[in-house]
């Protein structure tokens, strides 16, 4: 046995061996994946509050991408995988109730707990941020998170099914509600967060 192989093992869903050798289309897959996956995982993590669920959903979105041979400009492909992931989260993870349940069972730290006191503060901030996100309507939450990933208003409109001209207003209100909810929660002031 290798002494260095003591990492945590997780159940891993295998992929059809054929797919390992499949040409996914006009876009070079590896650079596309390297570029999009971290953002997609972050989006799913923020949406679900559960790292395992986020990984599962992000992976499934890319499997579908390859399985269906989706082609097109990179920007459109990015929208496609995010849209698929959003639907998967909605279908599988029932965001609000799941997040609360998972949060109670597995509080998520944003970083390794080097200092217990600092770690506790961080946990409080994380809990309050999640709680504030929970208070938003699903559409507002998605818009908020998509904006953070750099989507255009037109793309966001397509993904959540509203007019592009409404996105600015919906976003501004969602941001305000989110920050208000965070503060009303009696949340600690996050060290790197400015006031409005």
């Amino acid at each position, binding site marked *: *046995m*290798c*002494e*260095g*192989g003591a*990492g*945590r*093992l*997780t*159940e*891993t869903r*295998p*992929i059809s*061996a054929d797919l*390992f*050798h*499949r*040409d*996914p289309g006009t876009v*070079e*897959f*590896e650079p596309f*994946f*390297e570029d999009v*996956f*971290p953002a997609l*995982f*972050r989006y799913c*993590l*923020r949406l679900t509050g559960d*790292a395992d669920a986020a*990984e599962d959903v*992000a*992976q499934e979105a890319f*499997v579908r991408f*390859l399985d269906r041979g989706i082609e097109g400009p990179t920007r459109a492909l990015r929208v496609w995988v995010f849209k698929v992931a959003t639907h998967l989260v909605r279908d599988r993870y029932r965001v609000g109730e799941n997040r609360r349940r998972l949060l109670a069972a597995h509080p998520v730290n*944003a970083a390794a707990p080097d200092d217990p006191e600092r770690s506790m503060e*961080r946990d409080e*901030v*994380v809990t309050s*941020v*999640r709680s*504030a996100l929970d208070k938003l309507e699903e559409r507002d939450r998605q818009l908020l998170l998509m904006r*953070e990933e750099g989507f*255009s*208003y037109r793309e966001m409109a397509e993904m959540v099914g509203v007019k592009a001209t409404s*996105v*600015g*207003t919906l*976003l*501004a*209100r969602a*941001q*305000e509600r*989110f*920050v208000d909810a*965070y503060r009303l929660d009696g949340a600690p002031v*996050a060290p790197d967060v*400015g006031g*409005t």
Partner: protein
Amino acid sequence: MTNPDEGRLLAYLDGELTAGEAESVEAWLREDDGTGRALALEAIRRCAATVTDLLAHLDLPPPTARVRGALPRRAGASRDGRSGSHWLRRSGWAQAAALVLLFAGAGAAAMPGSPVRAFIARALAGEDSRGLVATEDSTSPAAVVEDVGVRVESAAGRLEIVLSGVPDGTPLAVTLVEGELAAVYAPAGTRFQSGDGRIVAAVDATASGASLRVEIPRGTTLASLEVNGRMYLVKDGDRLDLPGPSGDRTETEIRFLTGL
């Protein structure tokens, strides 16, 4: 102009307005009548920045390497350069290969002690009805019909692969590959677990007659392959030890029959 609402101001900050719309907002800002228009814009900017900062607290490092290892990779020209039409053309080869396998299998079945003979005996006894597989060509066991696979990167140059539940007489090919990803391909139904530098696969016990393929990056410093509790291969730098059953060895591949 009429006062832009907060949505329009955010769109302005986000660069989502047309040039004309943006000029209109800028004109409105210049005509400040003392009601703090610039402050209103600044409040929206700070609110957006606060959202960004708060959400960042939820982030964790993305498991990019692990997921990439489990995903299909783009077909490399060095490997096969397949396109859809290639696959169609190759289907004829697959049929021919199946015929070759049929004849080869018949020949092998005639040999006492042959695993093929054992397999056919089991199949006739009703123990197994799904073991016969067709490969596209003899150099590509990874393309065995219904095979599935998992890939991982080595962890600091170390790699551990553990296979269990492998029926005796199963062909196992270990290939040293370029790149950083190790892989295990096994019949559908195999249960996989993976972690940093590790793949653990519990092979479906009904998959007798199928084959297994393991890919180990040539650059791995220390790698081990264990099958049913028995060490088959240890790679230490450039040295390869085969403490388990003897295998047919070429420069890039070692072929075993498990349990023998």
